[in-house]
Structure formats: structure tokens, C-alpha cells
């Protein structure tokens, strides 16, 4: 098997583990959009854990580049217009659906929630259709 796929499996397992640490430790859903939405407004002292998570996330990414130097993310279509439109769709969409990939696909499906399974099937399908349509513009 391609070594990249093995890394992907290990990475995925670690993502599952981080979600379990979060759920088992503090009893919450490790959903990035939900945690982020919670700091956009009044934040009480009891909710500071949200900041800690949102700081930990980029710290983990930075830590990786310290341990494994030379990582470059690949993005062959870096259009700012796309970045703005996609950002709006992701921001509004995850707010409406109350969750994104981490909250619905990893945590929700992990709890065998039908709601999250449906959300995941919908966003994977619409993502596939969107990518298919972009072929006609490039």
C-alpha cells in the first residue's frame, strides 16, 4: 500500500483519539465549527476552553513542521475569489447545519447519530458535484 495511505490511516486514528479525549474528558463534541462559533460573541470564563482548543489546533500544525521539516501544503488553485466564496459557503453552511467534518463526520457518526450521517452524506455529495462542475470552468 502507498505509504501515504498508511499515514492517512494513522492520522485519522489520531483525529478519532483527539475527539475521544475531548468527549471523554470534558463531555463535549470536538467540532471545530461549533467551538469557533462559540467564541464569536460573549465568552464567559467557563468557556475559555474554546480558546485553548482553537490555539492548540494551529500549535499542533506548527509542531508537526518542527518534528517533520519540509512539509508543504499543496494547493494548485489558489484564487482569492474562490477563497472568499468558499469561505462564505463553509461559514454559513456549517452554522446552519450545526457542524462540519469534525463535528458531524468524526464525532457524530462515532456516536451513530443518524442526523450526522445524513449531514455527512449530503456534504460529501454536494462537494463531489461542486468539484465536477468546476471541471467545466478550468
Amino acid at each position: 500500500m502507498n505509504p501515504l495511505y498508511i499515514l492517512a490511516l494513522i492520522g485519522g486514528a489520531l483525529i478519532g483519539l483527539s475527539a475521544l479525549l475531548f468527549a471523554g474528558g470534558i463531555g463535549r463534541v470536538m467540532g471545530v465549527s461549533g467551538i469557533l462559533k462559540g467564541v464569536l460573541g460573549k465568552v464567559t470564563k467557563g468557556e475559555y476552553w474554546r480558546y485553548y482548543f482553537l490555539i492548540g489546533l494551529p500549535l499542533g500544525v506548527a509542531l508537526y513542521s518542527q518534528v517533520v521539516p519540509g512539509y508543504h501544503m499543496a494547493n494548485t488553485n489558489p484564487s482569492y475569489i474562490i477563497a472568499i466564496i468558499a469561505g462564505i459557503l463553509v461559514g454559513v453552511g456549517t452554522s446552519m447545519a450545526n457542524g462540519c467534518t469534525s463535528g458531524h463526520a468524526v464525532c457524530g457518526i462515532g456516536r451513530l447519530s443518524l442526523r450526522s450521517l445524513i449531514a455527512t452524506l449530503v456534504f460529501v455529495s454536494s462537494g463531489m458535484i461542486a468539484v465536477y462542475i468546476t471541471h467545466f470552468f478550468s
Partner: protein
Amino acid sequence: MSKTTNLISLVAGILFGFALVLSDMTSPDRVRGFLDITGKWDPTLLFVMMGAVTVSVIGHFLLSKKETPHFAEKWHFPWVKKGIIDNKLIVGSALFGIGWGIGGLCPGPAIGSIVFLDPYILVFTVSMIVSMLFYKKFTTK
């Protein structure tokens, strides 16, 4: 109590961020490649999901036997199997999927990848946060 909560949250964030780069989910090309089923399909994201969901399902099954979480008085999420399936869930997920597909980023990698200081990622992340803010403003009274 809140110190422990903050620490767990920080460690989970670090582990999550580290795992995202390890599996290259911080590359928009990988995400677009996974969704590109009629083109050059890239199964990497599928392997990430298989790893994550397997661990998550087993772990949550074990957690569901416990009365409370380790460091909190109660579960802050429902253990119900069904939940509310309404138009908001469907339309919201559909919109999110389109943005995910064309942008190649979802909220986790968008926040985590801030450290790359890549202008595309920063524009996406700001746009995402601003639209969340607007959505919250116009929907909560």
C-alpha cells in the same frame, strides 16, 4: 476544574492539528482530489475518515457506558441516535459541501493552517469567520 478543562482542550487541539498535517488534510488539493470522482480520484481522505470513524465509533461506544465524562459533571451532547433532521441540516450541509469542494478547506484545517501564513488560507479563514459572525448576528435575537 476549569484548568483541567482548558488543558484537555489544548491537548486535543494540538493532537488534532498534528494529525491533520500528518495525513496531509491541510492540503486543499487532497480534499478536492477526494471529491473529484470523475477525474483523478485521490483516496487519501477516505483512509483518514476510516481511521477516524473506526476509533471514534469504538471509543464512543465505550464512553456511552459511563455515567459522566472524566472531568465534567455531565455530557454536553445528546446520546440519542436520531436527532432532528430538518431543512436547515440538509441545506446547510449542502452549502458547506460546495464550499468545501471548491475551496478544499473545512473549518479544522482552515484554523490549523493559519501558521503557514499562506494568503489563500488566510483569506478563506477570515471569510469563513466573518460569515459565521454575520449568520449569528442575523439569526439570534
